[in-house]
């Protein structure tokens, strides 16, 4: 394989701090975010020649966003594979920049899931009225009242059955994310919670409690990715892309073992490309749609053996100060989950690698290499997994 290490860098980031924005449009939040991320990088509109985005609600989002921004990019990538789409975008931007087709890509996302009253996890198909289902696979799935929570809950149930994982272990993930959120002034929920609090929250879909599920917010953000030449002239020190891997996992005609998730396939090429191992990772941003997502992902990324994820997350290991701090912004479980969260993994990893929180409890000390893993779709049916490994300059 061609050596793509440091063939592109993240040079600008912006997180729209809103968690509730009924008076803005989705495209407006994206535009504001792009403008701020370019400012962060010291770049301008004229520098942007690649546009990467996904949307839950805007049709042809790349086309409509280019129109809104009055931008004529040389490359538009609308890859939409659920919440982890943005790790795929970064991987694609790396290819395009290395190939010399573009010099500067913007990756962006926004939504008004919260102000729009979208039941992301428990809506089923209700928000489309009450239609005839699409032929396949919906006619053989949605027929039975699938929800996003339910699909993850079925994986949690079997994980408990096979490996003895407990609700307390799942809760530990939520508790840790809340502790991190308490250090993030923008987080939606900042008051500390205990394992007992999680266990006492209502059961949405057995065995998952409400606090095992991510929050629903509005929000958005943007990431600017540049060629090494351009990156050297930016305001911020570059955060280099070391490796990327992409995968999908699905039902495999009713025969695939759904306990293994796409991270199992996507992490190997990312680590191989980066030339690092799990031991070299200083912090990780792990898509935390649900507590079980974190446990399954840590296992299938190879941070622990299959079935040991429940043990792995105990004793502060995934918290700030632990061996493998994850989601130092508070994650989807406490900070924000605007329908899709993959972009925010890249934002926080970049902030950590820049040392932006130096001198505060939120900073991972001596943070040199970070991993982001986005999961999109649902573990129990079909989903995507995008792994990217980033390094400080």
């Amino acid at each position, binding site marked *: 394989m061609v050596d793509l290490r440091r063939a592109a860098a993240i040079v600008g980031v912006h997180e729209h701090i809103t968690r509730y924005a009924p008076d803005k449009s989705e495209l407006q939040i994206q535009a504001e975010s792009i403008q701020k991320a370019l400012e962060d990088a010291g770049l301008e509109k004229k520098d942007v020649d690649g546009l990467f985005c996904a949307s839950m609600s805007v049709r042809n989002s790349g086309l409509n966003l280019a129109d809104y921004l009055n931008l004529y990019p040389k490359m538009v990538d609308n890859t939409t594979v659920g919440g982890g789409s943005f790790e795929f975008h970064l991987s694609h931007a790396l290819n395009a920049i290395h190939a010399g087709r573009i010099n500067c890509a913007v990756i962006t996302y926004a939504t008004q899931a919260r102000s729009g009253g979208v*039941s992301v996890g*428990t*809506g*089923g*198909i*209700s*928000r489309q009225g*009450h*239609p*005839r*289902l*699409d*032929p*396949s*696979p*919906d*006619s*053989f*799935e*949605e*027929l*039975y*009242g*699938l*929800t996003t*929570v*339910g699909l993850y*809950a*079925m*994986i949690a*149930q*079997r994980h408990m*059955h096979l490996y003895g994982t407990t609700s307390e272990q799942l809760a530990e993930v939520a508790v840790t994310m809340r502790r991190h959120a308490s250090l993030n002034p923008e987080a939606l929920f900042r008051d500390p919670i205990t394992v007992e609090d999680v266990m006492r929250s*209502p*059961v*949405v*879909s*057995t*065995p*998952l409690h409400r606090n095992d599920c991510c929050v629903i917010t509005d929000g958005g953000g943007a990431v600017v990715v540049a060629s090494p030449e351009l990156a050297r002239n930016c305001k911020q020190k570059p955060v280099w892309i070391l490796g990327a891997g992409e995968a999908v996992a699905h*039902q495999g*005609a*009713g*025969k695939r073992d*759904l306990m293994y998730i796409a991270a199992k396939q996507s992490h190997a090429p990312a680590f191989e490309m980066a030339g690092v191992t799990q031991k070299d990772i200083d912090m990780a941003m792990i898509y935390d749609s649900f507590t079980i997502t974190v446990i399954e992902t840590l296992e299938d990324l190879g941070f622990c053996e299959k079935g040991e994820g429940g043990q792995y997350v105990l004793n502060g290991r995934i918290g700030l100060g632990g061996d493998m701090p994850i989601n130092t912004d508070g994650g989807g479980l406490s900070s924000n989950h605007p329908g899709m969260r993959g972009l925010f993994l890249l934002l926080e990893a970049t902030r950590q690698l820049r040392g932006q929180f130096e001198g505060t409890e939120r900073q991972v000390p001596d943070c040199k290499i970070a991993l982001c893993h986005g999961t999109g779709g649902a573990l*129990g*049916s079909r989903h995507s997994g995008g792994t990217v490994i980033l390094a400080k300059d």
Partner: protein
Amino acid sequence: MTTWNKPLPTINGETKTFWDMARRGTLLIQKCDSCNEFQWYPRGICSNCWSSDIKWFPSTGRGTVWTYTVTNQNRTQGFDTGPYVLALVELEEGVRMFTNIVECDPKDVSIGMSVEVTFQQATPQISVPLFKPAS
């Protein structure tokens, strides 16, 4: 016939035979004549070898619960009235399908329990395969 207020499947050329036989109380899966693999859900090609040589195959309708969840919260009409069991059942032929476990207390469902197919008539054309504890 109970009133069906849940979503209904769309029947097309790929699935008409399936629903015709479901109405008569038979659960069909598919088997490939080229590679002998079973597949679920029904589709127009063999997803294993991409041959078009697929045949309908009557399942025994027996299987075990591979995993399940008791869903308390779903805003979809028909599923919004109380707990129901969403499950993946592994048929004896080795393929897993989504379904609901019915005719038992949700609390009594467990992974590995033996179940068998039962059909609930939704419309004169459509009977939906569900599973109940094996007799």
